[in-house]
């Protein structure tokens, strides 16, 4: 059997190898990779940096894949020489390996700019797994990080570092971010969005020197200004790895010169991926390189194939909430016509370049939801003559099923891996594919940049008989998006009401599951400055009382910290008598509950009580349970009552993803059970422990320690940081204990109490805004949101009196 050696174990190379192996028993294959990791998805490194994925999650071909396919894998070995006469490659481990056919898939390397003092610890490139691990180890909350290079990779690195808590700046040589994909206008909108994330942007400036002794302390620009820097990432472009080929005497310019069949100047040697050069050009985006692999596989196995034709390069920025998509040409030229849409206020910019009624390029900033359609036009060279009047505004399609039905069978769904709709449908029918995971496994679709996941889901849903939707992620089938996505949509599209979300992104109706969730989301995203739609709320939140099994309601007045008075108790007793309340009960959380109240009596009872709502009916802030603390207790070391009442005052009247129970206890004996509450303050001699994520319900969970602080003010602030963070990031109906388990207390600490000052300030300001716009719900007794909110409707035609007893 012929021996095939591949130098390089990256995405393009191994994808090509997968194609070669589709022709059985042709070669005995050995792959050399100088990294020590099996083949992984390099595009996703930024999501590892951002903590969205673990290193293992982005592996494409695990070690078992090589074994199963009989591929010899040599990791951590760098090939130092190709001897074309002897047809061997020499490794830096001393190995000599014979080949009959050789595939060069060596990728590219970061371009390192000439910078004085660049050889320092904590100066990184951002290219491979080791870089990513190094960055993760160096990144810590508050560290000053500078990314040199405002291209795709640089911006993703900046966002990743920022998520790790760093204080990030981006330095870019030209006046336009992503200037290889965006025009100046697109760059302006992108810059705004990046700055909104809290990343500082320096345009049109070049770095000259890195200051510091061993570790960076600052970055000096050519104009002499120095800004502080502790971590520096270099993302200033890539250069093909062609040196080995050049030394072996193969034709090389910038990259290794190949023909349309990926053959180099030596017929036994082929090349694929970023190391290649074709017609004087090199490529750095994945889709055309995967096409190369398909051509190479056919050519090297002597199968007929068409020549490689570079597809339009497409780039999508993978930063949540910052939609940027660019494909094909991006700058106007004399023979292109421009179609443009721009809404500066919401930062949406769309530009199409059209030549001879065909799409030549597209730039989308702020809303890339239509990128697949434009990509399809580009790929298929679609004649747009009949659509010229509405190129930017397609007919809205309400049903996802119709969208996938409209896709032609030959259309490529996954641009990265080149998977067509027909291939996906075939996999579903012939291989029994039912889940996204299986689809990825069998077709590889959606394993690249992941932007086709929605379409793949849609196809599975429409075609697979036993489709198992990964329902956990999407809120509801009425609005099939995750809550994280919805939050971003609400914010970036400036949507202020539930009905608008449903009209724009959903089925227009919603249901009992998504409507209360969306009500919460629009409230929290706009800090209460939204357009409230009571019809989308559960009945409890329309009448501010808890519905009981007989349709009556319960009333729980707020008794902050559980501290009441004789006068207050008398009022409660009088109300109970006056309205014939069926039961008065002291609940498990030091609350007094008046049960069995008719809806129409609610406003009168609230008026008679003159007390605020205890929010016992709401996914909101319940009363804070306290012990007596230093006020009376001989063991007390902290004033639990004052702290508890203050805590309650700061948060009360706000909605939370689920009910939020809190307690403050004045000593570690923990009489108020603070360690099993959503938020607890545990008093100690001279300090407070702030604990979060405790539970004593369906499950019991001891709360995690968020921080230990000395003063009550600090404890209240730590609690506030967590409280607002939970409000903004938890899914609706996710209790704090599930939330803390899902994210991990380390991450939560980093993003709350240990976050950089402006992040902490932002959380507190948004909490303050929500608080300012909130009010005691029971005040609606005087100003109802609708005249019949509490009042029973009396029919206009009076009911005749029937004398039943006489009959």
């Amino acid at each position, binding site marked *: 059997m012929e021996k095939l050696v591949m130098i390089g174990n990256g995405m393009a190379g191994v994808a090509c190898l997968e194609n070669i192996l589709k022709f059985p028993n042709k070669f005995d294959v050995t792959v050399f990779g100088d990294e020590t990791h099996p083949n992984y998805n390099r595009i996703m490194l930024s999501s590892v940096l951002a903590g969205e994925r673990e290193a293992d999650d982005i592996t494409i071909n695990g070690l078992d894949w090589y074994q199963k396919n009989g591929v010899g894998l040599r990791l951590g070995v760098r090939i130092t020489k190709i001897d074309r006469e002897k047809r061997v490659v020499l490794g830096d481990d001393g190995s000599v390996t014979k080949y009959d056919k050789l595939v060069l898939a060596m990728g590219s390397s970061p371009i390192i700019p000439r910078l004085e003092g660049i050889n320092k610890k904590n100066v990184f490139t951002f290219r491979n797994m080791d870089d990513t691990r190094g960055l993760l180890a160096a990144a810590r909350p508050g560290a000053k990080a500078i990314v040199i290079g405002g291209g795709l990779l640089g911006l993703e690195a900046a966002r990743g570092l920022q998520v790790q808590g760093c204080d990030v700046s981006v330095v870019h040589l030209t006046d336009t971010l992503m200037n290889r994909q965006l025009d100046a206008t697109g760059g302006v909108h992108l810059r705004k969005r990046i700055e909104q994330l809290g990343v500082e942007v320096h345009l049109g400036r070049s770095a000259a020197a890195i200051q510091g002794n061993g570790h960076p302390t600052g970055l000096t620009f050519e104009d002499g200004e120095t800004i502080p820097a502790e971590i520096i990432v270099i993302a200033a472009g890539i250069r093909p790895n062609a040196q080995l080929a050049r030394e072996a005497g193969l034709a090389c310019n910038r990259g290794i010169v190949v023909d349309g069949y990926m053959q180099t100047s030596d017929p036994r040697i082929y090349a694929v991926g970023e190391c290649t050069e074709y017609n004087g050009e090199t490529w750095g985006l994945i889709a055309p390189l995967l096409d190369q692999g398909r051509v190479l596989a056919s050519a090297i196995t002597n199968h007929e194939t068409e020549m490689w034709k570079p597809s339009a390069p497409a780039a999508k920025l993978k930063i949540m909430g910052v939609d940027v998509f660019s494909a094909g040409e991006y700058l106007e030229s004399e023979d292109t016509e421009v179609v443009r849409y721009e809404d500066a206020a919401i930062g949406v910019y769309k530009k199409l370049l059209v030549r001879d009624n065909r799409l030549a390029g597209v730039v989308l900033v702020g809303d890339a939801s239509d990128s697949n359609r434009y990509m399809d036009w580009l790929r298929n060279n679609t004649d747009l003559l009949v659509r010229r009047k509405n190129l930017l505004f397609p007919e809205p399609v309400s049903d996802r099923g119709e969208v996938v039905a409209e896709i032609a069978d030959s259309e490529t769904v996954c641009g990265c891996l080149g998977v067509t709709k027909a291939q996906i449908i075939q996999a579903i029918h012939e291989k029994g594919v039912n889940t996204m995971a299986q689809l990825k496994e069998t077709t590889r679709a959606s394993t690249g940049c992941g932007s086709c996941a929605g379409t793949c889901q849609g196809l599975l849903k429409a075609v697979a008989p036993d489709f198992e939707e990964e329902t956990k992620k999407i809120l509801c089938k009425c609005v099939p998006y995750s809550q994280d996505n919805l939050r971003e949509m609400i914010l970036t599209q400036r949507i202020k009401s539930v009905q608008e979300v449903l009209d724009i992104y959903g089925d227009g109706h919603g249901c009992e599951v998504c409507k209360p969730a969306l009500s919460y989301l629009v409230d929290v995203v706009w800090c209460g400055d939204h357009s409230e739609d009571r019809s989308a709320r*559960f009945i409890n939140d329309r009448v501010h009382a808890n*519905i009981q099994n007989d349709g009556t309601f319960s009333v729980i007045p707020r008794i902050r910290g559980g501290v009441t008075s004789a006068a207050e108790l008398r009022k409660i007793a009088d109300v109970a008598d006056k309205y014939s309340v069926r039961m008065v009960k002291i609940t498990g959380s030091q609350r007094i509950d008046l049960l069995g109240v008719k809806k129409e009596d609610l406003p009168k009872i609230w008026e008679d009580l003159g007390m605020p709502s205890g929010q016992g009916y709401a996914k909101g802030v319940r009363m804070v349970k306290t012990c007596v603390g230093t006020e009376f207790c001989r063991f007390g070391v902290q004033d639990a009552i004052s702290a508890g009442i203050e805590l309650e005052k700061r948060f009360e009247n706000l909605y939370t993803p689920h009910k939020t129970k809190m307690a403050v206890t004045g000593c570690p004996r923990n009489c108020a059970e603070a360690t099993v509450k959503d938020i607890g303050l545990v008093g100690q001699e001279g300090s407070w422990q702030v604990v979060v994520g405790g539970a004593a319900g369906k499950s019991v969970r001891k709360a995690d320690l968020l921080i230990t602080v000395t003063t009550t003010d600090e404890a209240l602030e730590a609690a506030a940081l967590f409280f607002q963070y939970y409000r903004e990031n938890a899914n609706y109906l996710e209790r704090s204990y599930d939330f803390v388990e899902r994210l991990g207390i380390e991450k939560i600490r980093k993003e709350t109490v240990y976050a950089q000052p402006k992040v902490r300030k932002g959380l507190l300001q948004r909490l303050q805004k929500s608080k300012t716009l909130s009010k005691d719900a029971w005040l609606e007794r005087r100003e109802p949101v*609708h005249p019949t909110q509490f009042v029973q409707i009396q029919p206009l035609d009076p009911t005749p009196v*029937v004398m039943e007893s006489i009959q």
Partner: protein
Amino acid sequence: MSWIRITNVDNLPLREGRKVVVHDRELAVFNLGNGKYAAVDNACPHRGGPLCDGIVTGHAVVCPLHAWKIDLETGNVAKPEVCVRTLNYEVQVVDGVLTVYLPENLRKDLAA
């Protein structure tokens, strides 16, 4: 004459229901939006929950007690799959007033 005038439609907020008692029957009347209204017995066939307090979804309402979904146009239970229904009534709006057709056999004053 079994059309009974209930109330000015302004008293029914968009996509909400209200309870009203006519001829000793407790009805739930709804404003479904787009000029559509509906009326059913105000008792979920499951455990008698007050349908007027449910969340409206399209032309159905979801009972606030255990989330049974009642189709307001037919009275049928849409979720879960059970073969029970609640009584629904014809409605029309006359001069801005919601009126409900109460069949004569259901009218207490005529029942005798």
